[in-house]
């Protein structure tokens, strides 16, 4: 059954999109990741214009992060004050990102930059995941109870920064500079790549800011929800590229898929799961990278100029 997308101005198969939403939702439920970094490339492979794919995906992430953030709020596993500081950086980053997005689009280089960013990020993260999970699998075979990894104390250069602030929930006394900077980086990525940015924020919060692991996920979801909500509004206002019909199909597919994914994830071993996700991420990276270097069959492209 085909449905007409009012903003993308194209007719698409509703079952294919629903299946994509459910498939990525399944993976994100299984692995506990947002899924934006898989969904946006898939939409581009399905010929949705990259500008629409990125902006619409930000809208979808609002839905998936809202239910997650709400659950963490109820369980009190989120540091609102830390989340709020990350959010201030995030909104600044998102506003900057949307401005960059508009000017790249004008210059005709938006699709290229989106692809390059994806190749770099997916390549790095995919490789790290595969290497890390293979090491874990090998270690498990060697000895049953490996000693828990040491958590080193806060990085000295971060501890030396000024403008310190106390975060009670996280039991941290921390400079706001790295917090704002991290929030800002994630905000830029949200608006240019259409991702939540959890894949950067979670490791950075654990390893750089030393935020206790029990509040990391809730706090990052809190920030992601508000930053993607702001990005959705900003993209709508600046570029008119949020397709609400496309977003709704993906949201519904996504939340349903995530439920089954979460159940499946409990039955599988963590390391094997991470290795599998790493391989999927690398496959998407290779496909995008190939399109960049392979001689295209059509050298020309057209766009509607000016309004």
């Amino acid at each position, binding site marked *: 059954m085909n449905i007409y997308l009012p903003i993308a101005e194209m007719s698409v198969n509703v079952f294919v999109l629903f299946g994509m939403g459910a498939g990525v939702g399944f993976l994100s439920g299984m692995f506990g990741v947002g899924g934006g970094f898989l969904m946006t490339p898939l939409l581009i492979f399905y010929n949705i214009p990259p500008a629409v794919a990125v902006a619409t995906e930000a809208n979808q992430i609002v839905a998936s992060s*809202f239910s997650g953030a709400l659950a963490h709020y109820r369980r009190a596993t989120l540091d609102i004050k830390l989340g709020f500081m990350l959010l201030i950086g995030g909104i600044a980053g998102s506003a900057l990102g949307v401005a960059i997005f508009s000017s790249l689009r004008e210059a*005709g280089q938006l699709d290229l930059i989106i692809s390059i960013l994806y190749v770099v990020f997916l390549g790095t993260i995919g490789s790290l995941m595969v290497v890390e999970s293979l090491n874990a699998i090998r270690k498990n075979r060697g000895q049953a109870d490996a000693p828990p990894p040491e958590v080193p104390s806060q990085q000295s250069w971060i501890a030396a920064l000024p403008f310190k602030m106390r975060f009670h929930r996280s039991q941290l006394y921390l400079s706001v500079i790295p917090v704002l900077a991290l929030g800002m980086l994630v905000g830029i990525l949200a608006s240019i790549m259409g991702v939540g940015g959890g894949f950067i924020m979670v490791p950075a919060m654990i390893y750089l800011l030393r935020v206790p692991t029990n509040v990391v996920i809730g706090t990052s979801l809190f920030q992601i929800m508000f930053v993607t909500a702001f990005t959705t509004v900003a993209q709508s*206002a600046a570029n008119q590229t949020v397709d609400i019909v496309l*977003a709704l199909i993906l949201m519904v597919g996504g939340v349903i898929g995530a439920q089954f994914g979460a159940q499946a994830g409990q039955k599988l071993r963590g390391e094997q799961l991470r290795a599998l996700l790493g391989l999927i991420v690398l496959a998407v990276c290779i496909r995008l990278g190939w399109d960049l*270097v392979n001689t295209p069959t059509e*050298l020309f492209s057209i766009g509607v100029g000016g309004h």
Partner: protein
Amino acid sequence: MRYLITLATFFALTFASFAAATDGADVQIGLSSETVEITSNFDGTDIVIFGSIEGGNRELLEAGGYDIVVVLFGPKEEVVVRRKERRLGIWVNGEAMRFSDVPSSYSVATTKALHEIADDDSIGILQLGLDNINVVTEEDGGVGEDLEVFRDSLARLKVRQNLFLERIGGVEFLSPTLFKAKLAVPANVPIGKHTAHAFLFKQGKFLNAKFQEMTVKKIGFEQFTYDLAHKNSLLYGFLAVFVAIATGWLASVVFGKD
């Protein structure tokens, strides 16, 4: 002097309807529908143009001496054509050329091949066929032969997007005087005013043309969404966020464990 002759030819062709009075042949057209409405399940459609040749020479009509070219023009737009080039091993958009007054869609149907209907000059002046669509470049001069390359690419890409279409023999005579042409309206048809033109030729000579407007518009939910997104984009953004939060909340109610 030569310029004047060309100009005179142009006027002679354009206002040939005056001359047509002496010949007596005239063309009339009607569209199967004057509006195309885009709804949520819109996947392209066909538009049928009916027409008749009135007051033509009976013998000539029966012998097939008259030819018809039907064209459906979409609203004019400005288009940027970009060419990729390899830089540092990566294919990036390089040279770009801007064209204005490009018909956003162009569909033509004829009784036979254009060069058999009339000579190249008449066909060119009337802008019939994909090779003769008149587009204006905004860069003035200095582009030389590249202009042709970019112009051809524009047409080729539009053809690939199903927006430019040529159907030789797409005009069908139902009787010596009645004809119909079926033109495809693709799923990605541009919104706005389209015009259908019918050109009447008699033994290689252009006689007369008629045109009729057709509106392509989104209706109902599609129109509401599109208008809101473009005219009230801030409100649209808040609505999109609201829909997302409602969906996320609903999911936590339906599936939530705590």
